[in-house]
């Protein structure tokens, strides 16, 4: 297994190089540059030229690429590893690290709630297939799954924050109350609700499908033939098998923990990583955009690896 992990990590290197090239190309080969908004008759071309030189934009592209790529990986100790933001001049690394906790709070809470609700719901739907409960759940999850996340966030915010004034309009804490947990939770409520509704709709369908497939298996018939009570059959024999794909999916969802909720963060002005990424794109803040894309890529690779490793852990049939 350790050998497998090492092998995968080595295989990841060309992928990372590929990602970096593609992302770099998209950003730098695009028409226009980040300083377009500064251009006006009042600003002399020399100033723009200096700015470009400071950010190294006057160098040939391959040189720029190499500079960026080689210093990228020094980030654990070098705050300048990811360059400086064009928007506010701060080190990109610090800007990103600063936002990570907020995003984790949002995504982590949502994921946690989603899982603990979706799994029982999925099991219920599968065990009581075709019953009224199942049909209701099926309808609810289908609609929930079809809801665009950002629209749901918008509506919830409109109803509960704007109209009913029950929850705050934006941000993660009221000014002056940083570090106050109840205040944080109050701000967290609506965005987490948005993500959880859509999340539960998706995950419970998955769980139900997985459970249904397992319940059809021969070994479930054997378990019943042994005289086991149905609760034992369901929660021990069936569930253990049905959770395997869920666990794998969990691994694949890890990458989204950092960047997945960009739009929801935007709707609620939640100061997270996703919102930072979107803002950076709006402002053409290239260093931030590049760093964000790379982090996303790294997370995806780690997530895939994690999913495969978890799969081997929970399914004794898998051996690497």
């Amino acid at each position, binding site marked *: 297994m350790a050998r497998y992990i090492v092998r995968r990590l080595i295989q990841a290197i060309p992928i990372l190089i590929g990602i970096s090239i593609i992302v770099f190309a*998209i950003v730098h080969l695009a028409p226009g540059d980040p300083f377009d908004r500064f251009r006006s008759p009042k600003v002399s071309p020399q100033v723009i030229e200096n700015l470009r030189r400071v950010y190294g934009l006057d160098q040939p592209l391959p040189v720029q690429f190499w500079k960026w790529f080689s210093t990228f990986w020094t980030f654990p100790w070098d705050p300048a590893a990811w360059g400086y933001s064009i928007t506010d001049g701060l080190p990109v690394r610090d800007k990103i690290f600063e936002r990570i906790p907020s995003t984790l709070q949002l995504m982590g809470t949502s994921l946690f709630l989603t899982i603990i609700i979706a799994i029982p719901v999925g099991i219920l739907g599968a065990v009581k297939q075709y019953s009224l409960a199942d049909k209701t759940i099926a309808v609810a999850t289908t609609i929930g799954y079809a809801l665009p996340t950002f629209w749901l966030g918008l509506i919830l915010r409109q109803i509960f924050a704007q109209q009913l004034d029950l929850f705050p309009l934006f941000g993660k804490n009221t000014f002056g109350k940083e570090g106050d947990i109840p205040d944080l939770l109050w701000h967290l409520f609506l965005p987490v609700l948005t993500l959880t509704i859509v999340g539960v709709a998706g995950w419970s*369908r998955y769980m139900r499908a997985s459970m249904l497939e397992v319940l059809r298996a021969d070994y479930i018939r054997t378990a019943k033939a042994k005289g086991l009570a149905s609760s034992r059959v369901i929660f021990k024999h069936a569930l253990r098998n049905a959770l395997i794909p869920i666990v794998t999916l969990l691994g694949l969802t890890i990458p989204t923990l950092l960047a997945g909720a960009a739009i929801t963060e*935007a709707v609620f002005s939640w100061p997270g990583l996703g919102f930072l990424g979107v803002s950076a794109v*709006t402002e053409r803040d290239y260093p931030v955009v590049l760093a964000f894309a790379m982090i*996303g890529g790294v997370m995806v690779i780690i997530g895939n690896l994690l999913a495969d490793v978890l799969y081997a852990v929970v399914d004794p049939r898998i051996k690497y």
Partner: protein
Amino acid sequence: MESTQTTRLPGGAVPAVDEVDLTPVRTYWQLVRQRFVRHRLAVIAFFLMLILVAAAVLIPALSGNAWKETSLERINQPPSLGAPLGYDNLGINTFVRLMKGLQTSLFIGFSAVVVIVLIGVPFGAIAGYLGGWADNALMRMVDIVLSIPTFFLILMLVAFWGTGNAWVIIIAIGLTGWTTAARLVRGEFLSLREADFVQAGKALGASGRRIVTRHMIPSSLAPVVVAATLGIADSVVIEAALSFLGFGITPPEASLGNMLTKAQDYFYRDPLLAWYPGITLILVVLAASFLGDGLRDALDPRQRVETS
């Protein structure tokens, strides 16, 4: 009693005859249609999609430029016969604009799916047919594309290369979404390569290209059709999100997404504004999803995974 005549041999015995099985024989497509029709939801979805497409095509065609015609006198007017949803803050007929937005969104959604299929199918076919190192190399490319967070990638492409440009959006969604189709086709090809009917074709002297185009591609199309239909739902939502954030279709052009942006800004004047494009969007997603599910069951009942 059955309507078969039984002939008898001398002595009263009946010669052994084949069983008369009265179930009629059907062609593949008849069976597909039969299975599809059994899913009431899929049939409803089909008609819903038809209605949506018809509305998106006809209403803008019939009303011409009404969707962007501003008018000072009609600002914020309540609903009336010609304007079931009233007029917005610029005096534009909301309903007509909604339909125009639907048209844009559907156009982008469908086109993006076409791009996905055009890129993904040949990609997967080549990878699956050639196997070996070609397959490896091509799948590495798939991994690379998949490793970049999809929405962010699309965002970058659209923002930097063409905000507000429908074609850029279409290509961006296509360039990031082809991977699923490619994987499906590759998977089918890999297994079909060893399939008996392919070996038979080779034995009969058919050339590689003939085998691929005449035999293998049709067999692998079923999952692609399903993925494409479901892909419409995803594409439409992505476009809406892009437009909502201000990168996709921008005003004065109409899109379901940018109508939502306006709804956010003008909430206090008209709280319902967010619901019209939202519901429309949801209807498109539901229609495409159920249609996709129905097609999946109809085209390959073996694949049946009950998700709803």
